[in-house]
Structures are given as structure tokens and as C-alpha cells.
């Protein structure tokens, strides 16, 4: 294992994972997001320790090279994250509109 890999694993396990736990405890992260991000964290560390797993996975999925599996899963993950952010943003926009509406209706002066 290279020094870079050790640094990344240490960052993921000693810095990133405790942040997730803290956010879950302070209820700023949903349980689903916590599970998803923890699995990502642990999975990334696992693949750094056992990079040959990619080769097994690529053979299993019938994808040419091990690194391609990483790229494909990376794309799927990114797509999922963008999707979630988009829907959260839409929800937030709707809430802003509702708030705006309630405030304006409260301040209306009938003639």
C-alpha cells in the first residue's frame, strides 16, 4: 500500500466518518443519507486496501477493465447525488414560494 492510499484511508475513517456520525446525531443528516455515505466511505477504503476486487467485479459484470467498474459506479453515484440535490432544490423553491405567498397574503390591505 502506498503512502497516498494510507493518507486517504485515514482521512476517510478518522475525519469523514466521524463527521457523518456527528451530523446524524445532530439530525442534520437523514438515516438514509448516513447509510449511503457511510457505505461509500467504507467501500472506498475497502477498494483502496484490496484494489484487485475491481478485477473480480469487472469479470463478474463482464466489463473489460477493473478501472472501468470504478468509473461506471462513480457515474451512477454522481447521477444519484445530482438527482437528490435537484429534488431538494425544487422542494426548497416551493417552500420559498409558499413562505412568500403567506407573508404577502398576511400583509394585504383590503379596500
Amino acid at each position, binding site marked *: 500500500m502506498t503512502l497516498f492510499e494510507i493518507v486517504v484511508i485515514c482521512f476517510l475513517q478518522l475525519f469523514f466518518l466521524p463527521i457523518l456520525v456527528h451530523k446524524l446525531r445532530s439530525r442534520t443528516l437523514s438515516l438514509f443519507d448516513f447509510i449511503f455515505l457511510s457505505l461509500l466511505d467504507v467501500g472506498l477504503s475497502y477498494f483502496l486496501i484490496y484494489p484487485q476486487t475491481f478485477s473480480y467485479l469487472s469479470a463478474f459484470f463482464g466489463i473489460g477493465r477493473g478501472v472501468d467498474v470504478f468509473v461506471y459506479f462513480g457515474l451512477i453515484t454522481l447521477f444519484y447525488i445530482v438527482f437528490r440535490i435537484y429534488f431538494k432544490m425544487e422542494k426548497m*423553491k*416551493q417552500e*420559498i*414560494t409558499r413562505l*412568500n*405567498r403567506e*407573508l*404577502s*397574503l398576511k*400583509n*394585504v*390591505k*383590503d*379596500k
Partner: protein
Amino acid sequence: MNKDNIFFVIPAYNEGQSIGNVLNELHDSGFHSIVVVDDGSTDGTSEAVQKTDAILIEHIINRGQGAALSTGFEYCQKVNECKCIVTFDADGQHRVEDAEKMAELLLNSDSDIVLGSRFLDLKNESIPTGRKLMLKLASYFLRFIYGLKISDAHNGLRVIKKESAYKIMPATDGMLHASEMIYLIKKNKLKYMESPVKINYSAYSLAKGQKTSGFAYMGFLTIYHKIILLLFEKD
């Protein structure tokens, strides 16, 4: 027909130049129940409205025409005298006599909504050719997407019975609300009619109105809206 029971909902965003004339025209025609939703204008639209006897609702920030209409609908729901709601443009494109005729038509029928159409009987020679083509295409497109047969997509002049207004209250804030309303008419199985209207195109209204590129963008948004409905809509 008691004109005080007909509520005009006028969404306005930076319409300070034209809103005063529109409100005066409505007032002179005997309509006194006018709700103007100022959608966060910065050009003195509110001040122009305050000089008249119209009811002013001010959005703190700009949220789009759909959001402004919904605010107006919500206000009207709480007013007992309101029998029907007219959605009317603030840029002086719509004629009061068309709105009056449509309101009369609605109140004397069992329909829930009367939609204005530029492409029925009346000759609208003032419609620029490019816009006419775009509007025709948009109508066919909406018919294909939502399955509702209408001759004029995105005509802002509509008259809706008060009890039906909640059913077609758009959830989308921007210009997509026009497509969404068509979809909601179909979804809620509302009875609708079309009535010929004439649009007064002026340099001002054309500059403020939808551009050709805007139609393409709307088409894209409508397809997106349909996909979202297919994926997430609960029957």
C-alpha cells in the same frame, strides 16, 4: 351578472408603465374587484396600483407568473363575494369586453373554465406571423403531450369558477404554469370551453412577451414536466 362577483387576478412584474391604464380601463367598465399580485417589481408597479382602488398583494421576492397567479387564487378563495376569477395580463394585451363576455358565458353554463383563444372566430391580424406559428405548434404539442384539445396554448385570459380555481392552481412558479393548467384541466376532468378573444399587440407587450427561444424552452420544460408526472404522479 353582478360585476362585483367577478374577481380579476392580475399578476404583474415590472409593469409600472401599463398597469395603471389596465386598471383604469377595468374600473371604467364597471369592474371593481381587482386583485393585483405584484411579483417583486422594482419599477414602481405597486405605487401605480396603490393610486387605484385595486387590491394589492405584494410578493417580497420575484417568484414567477405561476406563483403570482396562485397567490391571487388563494386570496380569492377567502372572499365570499367571489363567484369567478378572471386571469388577466398586466401589459394591456387583453380586452375587457372579451373578459366580460367570457364571464357571462361561464356563469350561464355548467362549465368550470372558459379559455380565451386567438384562433377562433375573431381575426387577429395583429399577431406576428412567427408568433402565430409558434402558438399553433405549441397547441398541437400540448394536445399531444396532455391530450387536451385546445386551439390556443398559453393564452393568459381565462375565466374560472371559484370552486374550480383550487383544482387548477399551478405548483410551478414560472411560465410552465400555462402548460400545467392545461394538464390540471384534463386531470381533474373539468368542463372547459373556448371563447374567441382579440389580443392587442403593442411594441411594449411584444417586448415583454415570450420570445421564440422562450417557446423552445417551454417545450423542453413541458416534456420534462410530463416525464416527472409519468415517474412520480399518483393517480
